[in-house]
C-alpha cells in the first residue's frame, strides 16, 4: 500500500470515528432528553387523569346524591314498604333517571341488596347485587367492575342511601373512550385503559383514546406484569416492523373497590419523533461521513501529492541513476524537508556525474597508458631484433664480403620477418578500432557453428592433436544476428581454445535452447584452465595470458556479443579446461524491425 492510500485511509478512519462519536453522542443526548420529556409528560398525564378521575368521581357522587334525594327514589322507597311492591312500575325508571342525569350505570337496590330497577341491565330486577357492600359504603367514588348483558365494564361508582334508608342508589359512569378523550393528550401520546373485568386478558377490554388500528394484544405482557405485582411498569411496545410505530408504554395500576385491581391505565408515548430524529441524525452523520471522506480524499490527494510527488520524483530519478543516467535532476519545488531532500539528491547526482566524468577521464588516461605500454611492448619486441640485425649487418660489412653476403641475406630475411610482425600487430590494433555495427539477419546458429568447424577442420586434422565435437540442438530456432561478426567471434573462441591446448585436446561446440527464449552456445576446451582472478580480467582489453597475445581477441568477442544484446561468461578452473558461454536472444522479428528502422533512418 502506497503512502497516498495510507494517508487516505488514516484521514477517512479519523473522519468516520469522529462523525460516529458525534452521532452517538447526539443520539444518546436525544434519547436522554426524550426519556426525560416522556417521564414528565407521563407524570403530567397521570396527574391529569387523577384530576379528571376525581372530578368525574365528584360528579358521580353529586348526581347519585341528587337522585337519592329525588322524588322518584322517595316514591320507590315508599312503594317498597308495601307487602308486594310492584317492581314492574320501575323497570324502566332507572334507565330514564340515568339518562337524565347522564349516568351510564344506575341501580336502585333495597335493604336486602335486591335490585329494584337497573338502568344498565333492566332485566336484573329482583336479583341481588352481590358487589354492593351496604354496611361500609364509601363516601367517595370508587372503581368497580359492573356486569352487563354483553359482558363486563369498568365504572366509577358512588352509592347513596335514599330518603327512608331502605333504598340505596348506586350510580356510576363508565370509564370508556369518552372518559379518555377528555384528557388533554399532547401530540404523540395516547391513553389506554385496560378494564380488569374478565378472568383473563382480553383485547376487548382495552379502551383506546386514539383511532389506532393495530390490535391491542401486544400490550398484554405489560398489563400482565401490572396485574401480577400491582406496580407500575414501563415497556417499549413494537406494533409493526417500522420502528417509528413503536411506543413507550407506562402502565399504572388502578385500585378498585376493597383494594382489588380494577384496571390498568396505560400512557403511551410514540417513539416516532425520537426515531425520526435519530434517523435524521444518522442520515446527517452518514452524509457528513460521506462528505468528510470525499473531502478527505481530496485533501489527502492534495496533501499526498504535496508529499509524495517529490518522493516519487526522487524515486524515479533514483531509478534513472541506477540505470546509469546521472544527468537526471529533481525539481526543487519547496523549501521544506522534501525540498532539502531533492536538493541533496541533485547534489548527489551532480557529484556522481562529476566523479563519473573523472573516472571516465581516469580510465581513458589509463587506457591510453595501457595502449601506449602495449604498443611500446609490441613495438619494442621487433625493434630489438631489428637493431641487432642492423648492427650485425654493419659489423659484417667490415668483414669478408662472402660473410657479409651471407649475413646480408640472413639479416634482410630477419628484417622482413620482423617488419611483417610489426605490420600484423598494427593491423590488429587497427581492426579493433574499426569494429563495424552488426547487420542483423536470420541466422541458423547450428549452421554457423558447423561453418567455423569446417574452417579449422583441415588444421586440426593436420596436427592430429585436436579433436572437435559438435553437440548441436536440432530444435534451435533461428536468431537475429550478423553472421560474419558472429562467425568471427566463434572463430576467436576456437582459436583461444586451440591456444589453450598446445599439447592437444578436445574442443566441444554445443548449442541449446533456453526456456527464456534465448539460445546458448558453449565453446569448451580441455586445456589447463585458468584461475578465477584471470577469469575476472579475461575480457579487459589488452589483457592476455598468452606470451605473444595482444589481449584484443576476447575483447572483440565481448564487443560482438554485446552488439547482439547477448551475454558472455567464462567458467574455468585450473586443470579442468575452460568453457565460454554465449547467450543470445532469439527475437528475429524484433531484430529485423530494428535493423530495418535503422536502415530507413540511415
Amino acid at each position, binding site marked *: 500500500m502506497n503512502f497516498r492510500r495510507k494517508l487516505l485511509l488514516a484521514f477517512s478512519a479519523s473522519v468516520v470515528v469522529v462523525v460516529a462519536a458525534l452521532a452517538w453522542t447526539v443520539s444518546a443526548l436525544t434519547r436522554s432528553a426524550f426519556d426525560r420529556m416522556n417521564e414528565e409528560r407521563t407524570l403530567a398525564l397521570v396527574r391529569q387523569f387523577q384530576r379528571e378521575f376525581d372530578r368525574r368521581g365528584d360528579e358521580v357522587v353529586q348526581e347519585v346524591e341528587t337522585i337519592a334525594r329525588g322524588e322518584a327514589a322517595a316514591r320507590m322507597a315508599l312503594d317498597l314498604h308495601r307487602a308486594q311492591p310492584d317492581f*314492574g312500575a320501575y323497570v324502566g325508571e332507572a334507565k330514564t333517571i340515568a339518562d337524565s342525569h347522564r349516568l351510564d350505570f344506575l341501580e336502585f337496590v333495597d335493604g336486602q341488596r335486591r335490585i329494584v330497577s337497573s338502568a344498565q341491565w333492566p332485566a*336484573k330486577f329482583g*336479583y341481588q347485587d352481590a358487589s354492593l357492600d351496604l354496611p361500609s359504603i364509601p363516601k367517595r367514588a370508587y372503581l368497580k367492575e359492573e356486569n352487563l348483558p354483553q359482558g363486563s365494564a369498568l365504572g366509577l361508582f358512588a352509592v347513596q342511601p335514599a330518603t327512608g334508608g331502605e333504598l340505596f342508589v348506586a350510580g356510576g359512569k363508565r370509564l370508556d373512550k369518552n372518559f379518555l378523550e377528555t384528557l388533554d393528550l399532547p401530540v404523540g401520546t395516547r391513553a389506554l385503559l385496560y378494564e380488569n373485568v374478565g378472568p383473563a386478558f382480553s383485547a376487548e377490554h382495552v379502551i383506546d383514546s386514539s383511532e389506532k388500528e393495530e390490535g391491542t394484544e401486544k400490550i398484554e405482557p405489560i398489563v400482565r406484569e401490572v396485574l401480577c405485582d400491582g406496580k407500575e411498569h414501563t415497556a417499549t411496545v413494537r406494533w409493526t416492523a417500522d420502528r417509528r410505530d413503536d411506543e413507550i408504554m407506562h402502565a399504572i395500576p388502578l385500585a378498585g373497590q376493597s383494594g382489588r385491581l380494577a384496571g390498568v391505565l396505560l400512557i403511551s408515548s410514540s417513539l416516532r419523533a425520537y426515531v425520526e430524529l435519530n434517523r435524521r441524525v444518522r442520515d446527517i452523520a452518514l452524509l457528513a461521513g460521506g462528505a468528510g471522506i470525499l473531502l478527505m480524499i481530496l485533501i489527502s490527494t492534495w496533501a499526498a501529492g504535496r508529499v509524495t510527488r517529490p518522493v516519487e520524483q526522487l524515486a524515479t530519478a533514483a531509478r534513472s541513476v541506477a540505470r546509469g543516467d546521472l544527468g537526471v535532476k529533481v525539481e526543487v519545488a519547496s523549501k521544506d524537508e522534501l525540498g532539502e531532500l531533492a536538493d541533496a539528491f541533485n547534489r548527489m547526482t551532480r557529484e556522481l556525474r562529476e566523479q563519473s566524468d573523472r573516472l571516465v577521464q581516469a580510465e581513458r588516461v589509463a587506457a591510453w597508458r595501457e595502449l601506449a605500454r602495449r604498443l611500446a611492448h609490441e613495438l619494442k619486441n621487433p625493434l630489438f631484433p631489428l637493431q641487432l640485425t642492423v648492427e650485425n649487418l654493419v659489423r659484417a660489412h667490415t668483414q669478408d664480403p662472402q660473410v657479409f653476403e651471407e649475413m646480408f641475406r640472413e639479416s634482410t630475411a630477419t628484417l622482413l620477418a620482423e617488419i611483417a610482425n610489426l605490420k600484423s600487430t598494427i593491423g590488429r590494433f587497427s581492426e579493433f578500432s574499426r569494429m563495424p555495427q552488426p547487420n542483423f539477419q536470420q541466422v541458423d546458429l547450428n549452421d554457423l557453428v558447423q561453418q567455423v568447424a569446417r574452417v579449422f577442420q583441415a588444421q586440426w586434422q593436420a596436427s592430429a592433436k585436436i579433436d572437435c565435437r559438435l553437440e548441436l540442438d536440432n530444435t534451435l530456432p533461428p536468431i537475429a544476428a550478423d553472421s560474419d561478426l558472429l562467425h568471427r567471434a566463434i572463430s576467436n573462441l576456437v582459436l583461444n581454445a586451440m591456444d589453450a591446448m598446445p599439447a592437444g585436446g578436445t574442443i566441444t561446440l554445443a548449442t541449446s535452447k533456453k526456456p527464456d527464449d534465448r539460445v546458448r552456445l558453449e565453446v569448451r576446451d580441455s586445456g589447463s584452465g585458468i584461475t578465477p582472478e584471470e577469469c575476472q580480467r579475461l575480457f579487459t582489453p589488452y589483457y592476455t595470458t598468452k606470451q605473444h597475445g595482444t589481449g584484443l581477441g576476447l575483447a572483440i568477442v565481448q564487443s560482438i556479443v554485446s552488439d547482439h544484446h547477448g551475454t558472455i561468461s567464462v567458467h574455468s578452473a585450473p586443470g579442468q579446461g575452460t568453457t565460454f558461454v554465449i547467450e543470445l536472444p532469439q527475437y528475429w522479428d524484433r531484430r529485423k524491425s530494428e535493423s530495418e528502422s535503422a536502415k530507413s533512418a540511415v
Partner: protein
Amino acid sequence: MKRFGWQLVAVSSLLVALAHGATRPQYGGTAHVWLRSAPNSLDPASPQPDAFSAGNIFRLIYDTLVIADDTGRLQPGLAIAWQAAYDRRHWYFQLRPGVKFGDGSPVTADAVAASLRQANTWSVVPQGDSVAIGLEQPDDFLLAELALPRNAIVKRDAAGPRGTGPFRVAEWVAGKRLSLNANEEYWGGRPFLNSVEIEFGKSYHDQEVALELGRVEVVEVAPEQARRMEGAGRRVAESQPLELLALVFARDSKTANESTLRGALQLCIDRESIRNVLLGGEGEAAGGILPNWISGYEFLFPVETNVTKAQEDRGGVNQAPVWTLGYNPADPVGQVIAERIALNARDVGLRVQLAAGTNADVQLVRVRLESLDAGIALETAVARLGSPAPKLDGTSAQKVYEAENSVLQGQRIIPLFHLPVVYGLGPAVKGWDVRRDGTWRLVDIWMNAPRNSSD
C-alpha cells in the same frame, strides 16, 4: 210549582236527547289510524310480514266468501250459502247477488274462481251463480281457511287489486300511507266513516304521542303499556290473548343432551316475574302455542318454573354450548325479556348470549294468531315460527292437541306468553266493538265530532 215542574221535565228531556244524540251513529268524518308495519302490497294473496295487521287492512277493502265472527263462528260473506259433499272434498258456495267490485264490475263465479285459484291450489270451478271447490283430501278446515284474509275475493287487473269491501282504495303509497274512501255500494251497508287514513312505520311511542295530541283516532299499544295507559285515563281496547311470545330454536334438537338442555331452559324461565314486571301484568304465561281460550287444552302444558330440576338437568350434561339468543332490536320489551331469560339461564348454568337480529341459535319471536279456529291458528302459527307444519287428522280438540303436543315435544318451540292485541282509541271514536280476535270493525264505528282528512 207545576209550571216549574214542566219546565224541568222539558230541560231534562232535551239533555237526555242531546246525550242520546252523542252516542247515536252518524255518518261522515275520517278515522286516522297509525300502525307499525305496512303490508307488502294490497294483494291479500301475497305473503305478509305481519299477516295479522295486514289482515285487518284487507278486511276493509275485500270480502271473503265466509266471515268468522269474534267467537270463531262462520257467517255468510260473499257466499250466502254453502254445502259440502259427503266426502268432504267437494264444496259448493252460492254467491251473493248484486255485489260489485270497486270498478263497478259484478262479482261473478268466474271472478271468484279466478281469485281463489290465485291464492290456492284448489280446483275451483264456476257453476252459474255458484263456485265449486274440489280438494285432494277431505278438509274440515276449508271454511275457516276461506275466512282468512288471504282468501279474500279480489279482481286483479292492470289497475291493481279491487275488492268488494266497505272501503275502496283512494291512494296507496307503499309502506307509508293508505287512504280509503267509503264504498257507497257496499252490500253490507255504507260505513259511517267517509274515509280512513292509515299511516305505517310508526313506533309505539310515536303512536302514543300522536294519540295524546289528538292527531289520530286509532293506534296500536304495546301490551305491557296497556295498564299504564288505562291508569292514565286513555281508552284502551284489548283482545283476548292471541299473540304468542315464544323462543324458537333455529333447528331441531339433534342429541339427547341438547334436548335435556332445552328442557332445562324451558324450566328455568321465570315467566311469573317477566309477566308481572316486564309485561305489566298483561297476558298469560304460555305452555302451549294456542291460548286456552282458543284451544281449550292449553292448561295441560306446564308453565311452572323449576330451577332445581333445571339445574339437575344441566348438571347431567358435561358441556353446554353457548346459545345465542336473538331478539328484535326494535322491540325494547322483547330485548329486556331476552336479557331476563339469559339471566335465568345463567342461574342454572346455561350460557346464553344476546344477539340483536335474527341470526341466532334461538330467537325470541312474537306471532299473532290469524284465526280463531284452533287447527288453522296452529298451522299458521307453527308455519310462521319456522317449524314443520303439524299433522292434523281432524278438527276435534283432541286432534289439534295431539298435533300441538307433537310440535312441542320436538323442543324447537318454547311458548312463553300469550298477549292481547291492544289498541288505543281517541275520544271521538264511537261504536268500537271490543273483539276477542283483535280484528277491526271500522265499518261499524263513527266519529263523535267528524273532521275532514285535511284537518
